[in-house]
């Protein structure tokens, strides 16, 4: 890499490019020296690279701003180009709704203003344009309030510039700044307060009142900016390198920034109804997502020296590093730990990463990315970070009963994976008390599931060893056993003819019998003699046993003998039996159960509807609140269905592109042919229409081929579109079936609607049937201040006791409602298109319990007003 490039890239870092210096002034001067030498000859290379650095290293924006300020003193034209290019990128970003670019470029413009490169009035004009677009959007008459998410986003972009340039603006254009602030305040007074209970991490006590009173993201930012303003716009977390060069920069010529325009918001639905408004609002929120949802893990004492605005700035830095450095482990970790701020921020860093890992509905990256980041930070800050992470785990574990169900699963997956990277070392003895809790207590379930995942990543004995400090926890380990084969020939149990049948099949497979041979054996010998259901059990068990040695063995058996299974499981009823057999064969091994069912769905031996039916069978229902096993299988089925549909969508969109290309090819070959044909040529001295016949013939064949090509693409597009249409229909059936099943089992078990209106009511029902409450202490010790369900550390006989007071049925309802939320939220985009039908047949039917309805509605981010 050329040296000027690495200087640009590494500016502000402790790096060999800058020798021993870590002084911003030195860095800027050195970099400026290198760049000015290149400008005359390589300006065309410097410009795009510099802008790339600006966009991808937003925590260094002030350094780049100052650098460009210095360049501006010598080469106004070059800097004008930078400004123009930025204008173009910014306008593009607005048009396409590229949130990150809009936000980062606006910050860049602010630092250009601070370095006298940009007229401060130009910046104010940009702010005012955004402000007026936002105000229009939320106006009931002129705009479309469903798109408030975008308006909020614009305002948050304006506000988030102030830490970088508030001080300069107030000095240079105090009145204009005041006008912007007044405008923002006015906007805040007309917009709606965002209530999204469906996306909060915790189901806290008094959830509704709390979210109504709590500031939403924009109100919170506004509060921090107001505090900043009253503090004289001083920010510790933002470097102000332009002050080091103030004397020089003053002489620079400030450029103008042309006007910009914000795209129009889509029209309000012509027939305003709850549903169309809801759909639009949902789309808008997907396009302009909220960047962070704060997760408060640590006590506020950990953040005492932090000004409100510093928290915001550091979060921005961290999120940007996470965004731009995924896949670059070294840089990511070193930028995370080396932010340009004069205070420690490990706790804030941990909260920010966990808030992303657990973010609802989806984190920006797969959870495994944050796992990696946490591992790397533990290695980069071995003295500080591991303890902070452990503290976060403890704090989340304390509140696990209130944590959203989806977040719990992510936490389980993360934690088990994290521990597997650190020799599975954890002070399990701290949590040994979960054994005293009922088997549905969320803390106990959490420990059990973490151990299960650890065993999957490692092996039973190793994990058993890792809980040596709390040997009782061994009880929560998954069973150690292997498969549970009904027709084992080795044991001493009674052998019957089914054993013989199974052995016969074993031999056929060993002898590499073809599937059709097995099928005819089945048709001719087995089914007539033993009946359908017995045959099913023998065939399925035996094939599973043959494929039990590994994932690959399973696949091989299914590929080779899948048809045998389809023969014996031709309809949904039989498929449900098939799944039961799988579950019984692998009853000791949840992972293999899930994998086998997943693969069978992959080979279309079972349908997603059959899986759903089985999930709602009694054997599963009774473990909803004590195990993730049924839920994992349901998750897989929904995920696979979703993946199939999105693959189809991708194929269709790529075919559509191919068609455009093919049409162009057709037009081009046709033009060439026409041109050739219309040309006059001399044949035997006579002028005839048409060029050289050989060429014409060739062109004709090209044109025909191009047409054929186009048609064949159209055909495949049509075929794919038909497949997609069918898949979407099936999806409707799938979700209808899912929600109907949820609704009916919940209505069956939830107390009547009049007695429980909130989850809180559900939690406070005092369990009268304490059959499973194996707690010794007298109830009086517990119902004192047990408004919530958190395990209380109540002093009984001098010792600390943990208790969980939610009864079994109530916990079952809470867990199931939690999963209803999780699934609805995750597949909201797939569910919205079918919402009318779902409303009519399930959600708004009289049988639907209000708590169930509320769970679905809040997860779809749908207004509850219509309930």
């Amino acid at each position, binding site marked *: 890499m050329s040296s000027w490039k690495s200087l640009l890239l590494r500016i502000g870092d402790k790096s060999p490019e800058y020798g021993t210096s870590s002084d911003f002034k030195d860095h800027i001067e050195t970099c400026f020296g290198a760049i000015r030498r290149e400008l005359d000859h390589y300006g065309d290379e410097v410009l795009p690279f510099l802008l790339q650095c600006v966009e991808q290293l937003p925590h260094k924006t002030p350094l780049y701003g100052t650098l460009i300020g210095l360049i501006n003193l010598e080469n106004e034209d070059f800097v004008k180009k930078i400004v123009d290019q930025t204008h173009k990128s910014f306008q593009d970003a607005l048009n396409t709704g590229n949130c990150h670019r809009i936000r980062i470029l606006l910050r860049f413009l602010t630092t250009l203003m601070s370095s006298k490169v940009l007229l401060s009035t130009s910046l104010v004009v940009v702010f005012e344009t955004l402000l007026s677009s936002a105000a229009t959007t939320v106006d009931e008459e002129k705009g479309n309030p469903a798109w408030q998410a975008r308006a909020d986003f614009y305002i948050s972009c304006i506000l988030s510039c102030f830490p970088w340039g508030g001080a300069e603006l107030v000095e240079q254009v105090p009145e204009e700044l005041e006008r912007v602030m007044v405008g923002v305040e006015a906007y805040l007074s007309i917009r709606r307060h965002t209530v999204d209970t469906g996306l909060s991490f915790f189901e806290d006590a008094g959830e509704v009142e709390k979210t109504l009173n709590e500031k939403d993201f924009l109100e919170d930012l506004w509060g921090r900016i107001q505090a900043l303003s009253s503090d004289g716009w001083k920010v510790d977390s933002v470097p102000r390198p332009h002050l080091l060069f103030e004397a020089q920069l003053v002489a620079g010529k400030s450029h103008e920034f042309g006007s910009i325009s914000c795209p129009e918001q889509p029209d309000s639905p012509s027939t305003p109804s709850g549903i169309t408004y809801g759909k639009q609002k949902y789309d808008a929120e997907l396009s302009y997502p909220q960047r962070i949802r704060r997760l408060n893990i640590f006590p506020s004492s950990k953040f005492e020296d932090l000004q409100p605005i510093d928290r915001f700035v550091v979060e921005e830095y961290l999120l940007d590093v996470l965004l731009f450095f995924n896949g*670059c482990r070294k840089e990511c970790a070193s930028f995370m730990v080396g932010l340009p701020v004069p205070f420690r921020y490990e706790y804030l860093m941990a909260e920010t990463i966990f808030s992303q890992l657990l973010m609802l509905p989806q984190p920006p990256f797969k959870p495994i*990315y944050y796992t990696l980041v946490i591992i790397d930070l533990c290695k980069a800050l071995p003295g500080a970070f591991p303890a902070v992470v452990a503290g976060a785990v403890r704090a989340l574990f304390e509140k696990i009963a209130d944590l959203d169900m989806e977040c719990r699963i992510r936490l389980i997956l993360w934690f088990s994976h994290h521990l597997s990277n650190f020799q599975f070392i954890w002070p399990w003895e701290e949590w040994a008390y979960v054994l005293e809790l009922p088997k549905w207590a969320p803390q106990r379930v959490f420990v059990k599931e973490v151990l299960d995942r650890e065993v999957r990543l490692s092996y039973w004995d190793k994990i058993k060893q890792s809980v040596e400090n709390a040997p009782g926890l061994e009880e929560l380990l998954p069973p150690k*056993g292997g498969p549970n084969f009904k027709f084992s020939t080795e044991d001493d149990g009674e052998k019957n003819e089914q054993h013989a049948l199974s052995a016969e099949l074993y031999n056929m497979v060993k002898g590499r019998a073809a599937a059709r041979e097995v099928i005819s054996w089945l048709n001719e010998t087995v089914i007539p003699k033993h009946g359908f259901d017995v045959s099913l059990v023998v065939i399925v068990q035996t094939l599973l046993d043959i494929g039990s040695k590994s994932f690959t063995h399973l696949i091989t058996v299914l590929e080779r003998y899948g048809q045998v299974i389809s023969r014996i499981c031709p309809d949904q009823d039989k498929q449900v039996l098939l799944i039961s057999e799988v579950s019984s064969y692998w009853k000791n091994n949840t992972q293999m159960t899930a994998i086998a069912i997943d693969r069978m769905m992959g080979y279309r031996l079972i349908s997603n509807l059959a899986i759903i039916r089985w999930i709602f069978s009694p054997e599963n229902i009774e473990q909803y609140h004590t195990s993730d096993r049924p839920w994992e299988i349901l998750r897989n089925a929904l995920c696979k269905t979703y993946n199939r549909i999105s693959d189809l969508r991708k194929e269709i969109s790529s075919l559509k592109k191919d068609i455009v290309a093919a049409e162009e090819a057709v037009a081009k070959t046709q033009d060439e042919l026409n041109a050739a044909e219309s040309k006059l040529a001399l044949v035997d001295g006579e002028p005839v229409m048409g060029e050289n016949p050989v060429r014409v013939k060739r062109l004709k064949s090209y044109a025909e081929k191009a047409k054929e090509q186009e048609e064949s693409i159209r055909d495949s597009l049509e075929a794919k579109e038909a497949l997609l249409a069918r898949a979407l229909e099936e999806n409707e059936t799938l979700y209808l079936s899912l929600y109907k099943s949820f609704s009916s089992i919940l209505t069956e078990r939830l107390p009547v609607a009049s007695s429980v209106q909130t989850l809180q009511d559900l939690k406070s029902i005092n369990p009268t049937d304490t059959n499973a409450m194996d707690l010794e202490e007298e109830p009086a010790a517990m119902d004192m201040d047990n408004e919530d369900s958190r395990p209380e550390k109540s002093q009984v006989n001098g010792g600390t006791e943990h208790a969980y007071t939610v009864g079994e049925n109530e916990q079952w309802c809470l867990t199931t409602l939690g999963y209803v939320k999780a699934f609805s939220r995750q597949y909201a985009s797939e569910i919205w298109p079918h919402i009318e039908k779902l409303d009519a047949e399930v959600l708004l039917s009289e049988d639907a319990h209000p708590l169930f309805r509320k769970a679905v509605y809040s997860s779809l981010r749908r207004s509850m007003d219509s309930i």
Partner: protein
Amino acid sequence: MASLFKDPSKLSVYRDRRFQGTQDEFEHALLSSTTVYVGNMSFYTTEEQVYELFSRAGEIKKIIMGLDKNSKTPCGFCFVLYYSREDTEDAVKFISGTILDDRPIRVDFDWGFQDGRQWGRGRSGGQVRDEYRTDYDPGRGGYGKLVQKELEAQRQLVDYGTDSLGSMPPVMSQHGNHGGSHGHGYRHGRDYHHRKRHRDDDRHAHESSKRNSDFESRRNSNHESRPEKNPRFRESGDSDEEDDDDRKQRH
């Protein structure tokens, strides 16, 4: 993303000599591939462990374990096939360098699995890197194959006796019989046909856990016993210096 720090030459650092085609075709294959190569695995790691870890990057289509071409047992590498390119990229980005079964594994784009690539390419059947290693790596069969031969030769010269040191039991011990030593802390049921490896300890424990003993014993009798290395030597860290699969070393 992060294009600034991505080394553009990274994709082409490796060149599998078995790839039939030009450098451009090789790079194109890597850029569009949905297969990853996983290296520096323990011989004991099972497909299900790989599945659990790699499914966190996306839906898995297939796993192909790398096998010793003589013994047909896992020899420390595998291929994972995904359905989507994005998931493949995430596996490379987020899993490479993390720990699986106590070892830092390496995950790279692979140009695509073809039959035959599951076999180790070393002279002795395993991977090339295990041919010349001089360190002791209990997760990968102890010393490198050449060193093992050397030791074996020495052992035949000097008769240590079977029990004298306990540190040098017969290199070949029969799997499935309880003779020889019992590992303490090390696993050595290097047995691909078991779902999970187990140590000799496990089999003693079976008395208390009836759940699967029938199954295990049936399994044991079902396949021929297989020689295995006894990893009872002191661990001396692991080395990823040698390279697998004729790949060149990453710098």
